[in-house]
């Protein structure tokens, strides 16, 4: 008996905030997480994303505001009565219980008979590809397998909302990629609502329906992955969602929602995004910069060239400052000291608030 698809519940936060004495961990914020979607809370350490997650889980009680899960006010309910499950960063598998006992633990806590719980647990283990490992102890499993046990233990309760607290941070890079795809696949198959905390932007881009970028205890920007990557609202989000060159620019004129922008000698038409005529900043993705022969576009000199296998990385000194460039043309490289001219592709360049 494996897990069935169902529709996940909506999570609604209204004015949720958390203070520890004088320290504000989360400033009061509103957030709606639609049922059946995977939303990532992304941000540097100390930004409040984990506190927000723990408040949804019921491990911390909010200082103010209310939390609704599936329309029910759960703000004051303890963790066990919220119909949520949390996958911990450390997995928090009980080391003295077998894998099967771990997975069945929540079911038995909820009052299910031991035998029925064991059957359900076996089904859940099968769903995550661990059929037959129920008798092992957690310490006898590999890191990836432990991760899957943690997921199975959370999923077997068929929670309305599944929470992940940096679930992949203890895995090596290759395994991390695989597990992240598995989590996404599982979420879509079961249709469960997932709130996922991470500080890794590529992980966030890969798994999310929506990403909420947090900074200094508040939401910096929320949106679809491509929104955040291609249209960050400010320098912080641009920088956090992957590499970005922030260059000084000037908005010369605005016409029909398009701004004509001067970046040194380069001129571009960009969505104007509420900026006024005058000095501004642009965030330029490294892959949006084209390297041409000297004399074209922005003049520069290659300061450093790094061979990365699939791509080349360059640091190029220009009148506007150092520009970081990623080029797919591995066959035709530029040596350090070479003079080049830079132009910008249309995509990957965006006006931002400084």
């Amino acid at each position: 008996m494996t897990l069935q698809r169902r529709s996940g519940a909506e999570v609604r936060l209204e004015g949720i905030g958390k203070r520890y004495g004088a320290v504000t961990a989360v400033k009061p914020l509103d957030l709606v997480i639609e049922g059946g979607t995977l939303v990532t809370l992304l941000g540097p350490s100390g930004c409040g994303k984990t506190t927000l997650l723990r408040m949804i889980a019921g491990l911390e009680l909010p200082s103010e505001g209310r939390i609704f899960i599936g329309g029910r006010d759960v703000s004051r309910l303890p963790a066990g009565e919220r119909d949520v499950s949390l996958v911990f960063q450390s997995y928090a598998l009980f080391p003295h219980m077998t894998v099967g006992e771990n997975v069945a633990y929540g079911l038995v806590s909820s009052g299910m008979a031991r035998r029925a719980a064991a059957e359900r647990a076996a089904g859940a283990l099968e769903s995550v590809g661990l059929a037959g490992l129920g008798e092992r102890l957690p310490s006898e499993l590999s890191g990836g397998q432990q991760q899957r046990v943690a997921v199975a233990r959370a999923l077997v309760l068929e929670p309305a909302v599944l929470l992940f607290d940096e679930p992949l941070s203890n895995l090596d890079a290759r395994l991390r990629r695989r597990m992240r795809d598995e989590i996404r696949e599982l979420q879509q198959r079961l249709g469960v609502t997932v709130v996922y905390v991470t500080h890794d932007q590529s992980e966030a881009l890969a798994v999310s329906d929506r990403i909420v970028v947090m900074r200094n205890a508040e939401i910096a920007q929320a949106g679809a992955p491509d929104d955040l990557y291609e249209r960050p609202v400010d320098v912080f989000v641009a920088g956090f969602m992957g590499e970005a060159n922030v260059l000084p620019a000037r908005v010369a004129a605005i016409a029909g929602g398009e701004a004509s922008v001067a970046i040194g000698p380069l001129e571009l038409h960009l969505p104007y995004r509420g900026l006024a005529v005058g000095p501004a900043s642009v965030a330029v993705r490294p892959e949006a910069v084209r390297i041409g022969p000297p004399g074209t576009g922005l003049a520069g000199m290659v300061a450093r060239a790094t061979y990365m296998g699939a791509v080349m990385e360059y640091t190029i000194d220009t009148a506007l400052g150092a520009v970081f460039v990623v080029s797919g043309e591995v066959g035709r490289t530029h040596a350090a000291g070479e003079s080049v001219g830079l132009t910008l592709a249309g995509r990957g360049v965006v006006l931002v608030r400084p």
Partner: protein
Amino acid sequence: MRHVAPAWWWVAAAVGATVLPWHMQQAGLGLGDLRAFAAADPDAASAAAQAVLHGRFWFWPVLAALAVGAVGSLPPGLARPRRGALLFAGGVLGLLAVAAQGFAVGIAGWTTPRLASLFGPLDDRQFGIGLGGCVAVLGFLFQATDGLALRGAFKGDRFTAGAVGLLAFSILVFTVWPMATILAEAFAGRGDLGPLAAFAERAADRKVWGMECVSSGRSCGVAWNSLALAIATATLATLLGLCFALIVTRTGFRAKRALRLLTVLPIITPPFVIGLGLILIFGRAGVVNQIVEAVTGSQLGRWIYGFQGVWLAQVFSFTPTAFLVLIGVVEGVSPTMEEAAHTLRASRLRTFLTVSLPLMRPGIANAWLVVFVESLADFGNPIVLGGSFGVLSTEIFFAVVGAQADFGRAAMLALVLLAFALAAFFLQRAVLGRRSYVAVAGKGDGGLATPLPRGIARAAFAVAIPWAILTIVVYAMALAGAFVKVWGRDWTPTLDHFRRAFDVTPTADGGFILSGLAWNSLGTTVTLAAIAAPVTAALGILASWILSRQRFAGRFALEFALMLTFAVPGTVIGVSYILTYNVPPLEITGTGVILVACFVFRNMPVGVRSGMAAMSQLDRSLDEASATLRASTTRTLARVILPLLKPAILTALVYSFVRAMTTVSAVIFLVSAQHEMATVFIINRVINGDYGVSIAYSAALIVLMVAAIGVIHLAVGRRRLGRRAAAPAPLVPAGGRV
């Protein structure tokens, strides 16, 4: 407790107040007799019966509080917060009413003249509370904590609320109250002196603070004696302990394991065994004296009795304690720090002096303070070897048991001792910062411990090895004394002493009588220690769980109060307990209860320490995982925390048992004819110079305790956690005995 209806505790309070006999009964009684007894004898009746049938009006407030709680306990209707408020109010009122009536009416009617003038004369009296009173008090207490939880305190968790309430209440009854009694006793008026004048007179006593020893040959005040002794002992024992610790952790010495065994000694040794050993070596009939006399013809005399002797004995006794603390300190210095120093071209000696030693400094200071406090509180060695050299702990004892029986003086001396101990406690906190008594359980990062610089290693060996040998000799002598007729005079080997202590006489009808002198006290000791051990372990583990896992308003205050409790020297506890529990409302002097209470509160640090150490190795996310998996607090505790704490629990159990058997300082005040403790029996023999039986008995105790400790080492074994080796539980919790 989440699943128990709130009314449960109200019912307990009600049963305690209306059904069970309120006061302590001399003889047991059956439930059927209750009504008959109640009608005839008010002292055998429940509080309600006493109020209704016998006109003991002081119980009406208790019953009124019950009525308030009853409204909160009614099943339907009320919202949670309001119900909580009523339960809390009823519980608190109940506790206050119980306390008020207990303190107002004693064995001679009103306890103070002011009450008599306020309410008119009272032609009645009452004794200490018994079963009914205790049940009612617990009922009221948990009803109040339930109420708090219902109002949202402690995250709404009733189990946590109850546990915190129980701890706070225990501290209040078994520490704060006795300490307040001591304070009051020190201020008690004497003759025509008022409270302040009496206090001032006692405080300025020349026998306490006199400085005559500086200018003349006379002895100084006992406070100075205690301080000087504690400083001397702490300094030497820390130095020796550091040498041992460095040898064990930083050299290739082959007998490391044997050295480590030294750390177990202070736990299994009754506190006067070292003193006995020293007497047998250096006493008037001691081996050394006899040899010196035979060779040179001169008498060494009684030099061992006095400061030197006590100092020597304490250094022998407490070096293992310092050693134990310092092993952790030296091991806590990360090898990578030293490796870093090496790569920065520091020599071994320079690394040791500039990196390792400074990193150890707080730990060394802590070890010093631990020994300082142990020396201050030590009773066994000064009483055996002190002679005319008095220290605070022995002086307190003589003030109580002596012909003078001056409780005011005892209280004053206890206050001085308490002040010293608390000063050390605050220093210790300042030195260790917030890490207080949690063992530093840092993750060891890689790297090998750097061997000691050669010069320092040599010095350490030169100091430590002779001392270790001496320690063995002292123990050997102490034990050998059990097997000769009269030490120093008649060296004929004999088992007489054992026979006298542990004789078993067969009777005519095929049974036998335990006719040995020791059986009675041994039986009492083992029984009481066995009763106290589970209580101690349970409370200690509960406290460690609360302190390390729960966050609530007042947590810091609770932790602080608990640690203060642990800092009170045993002698002070002993004196305060007899002063406090000699009279109603809690009249338990002379019973086994007072000894068990004393053991529990003296030995709880063992449970708390091992619990905290084990808990710090358990990731907090395990609790949280259990909570998000729909488990109640009790289920989390029972299924996740306690199984993982099994080694810590066993450790706490056995060590609280062992320490209850070896303690002497507090219990010497609390024993009675029916409840004689082994250590007190032995010390009385020692004081009378009857060494043979004392040594035989001590040897038997040591064997018993080694067996107990061996049993846990076997029983604890390794936790079943698969490939990863289990984190070794700290088997020997540091510090705090006497």
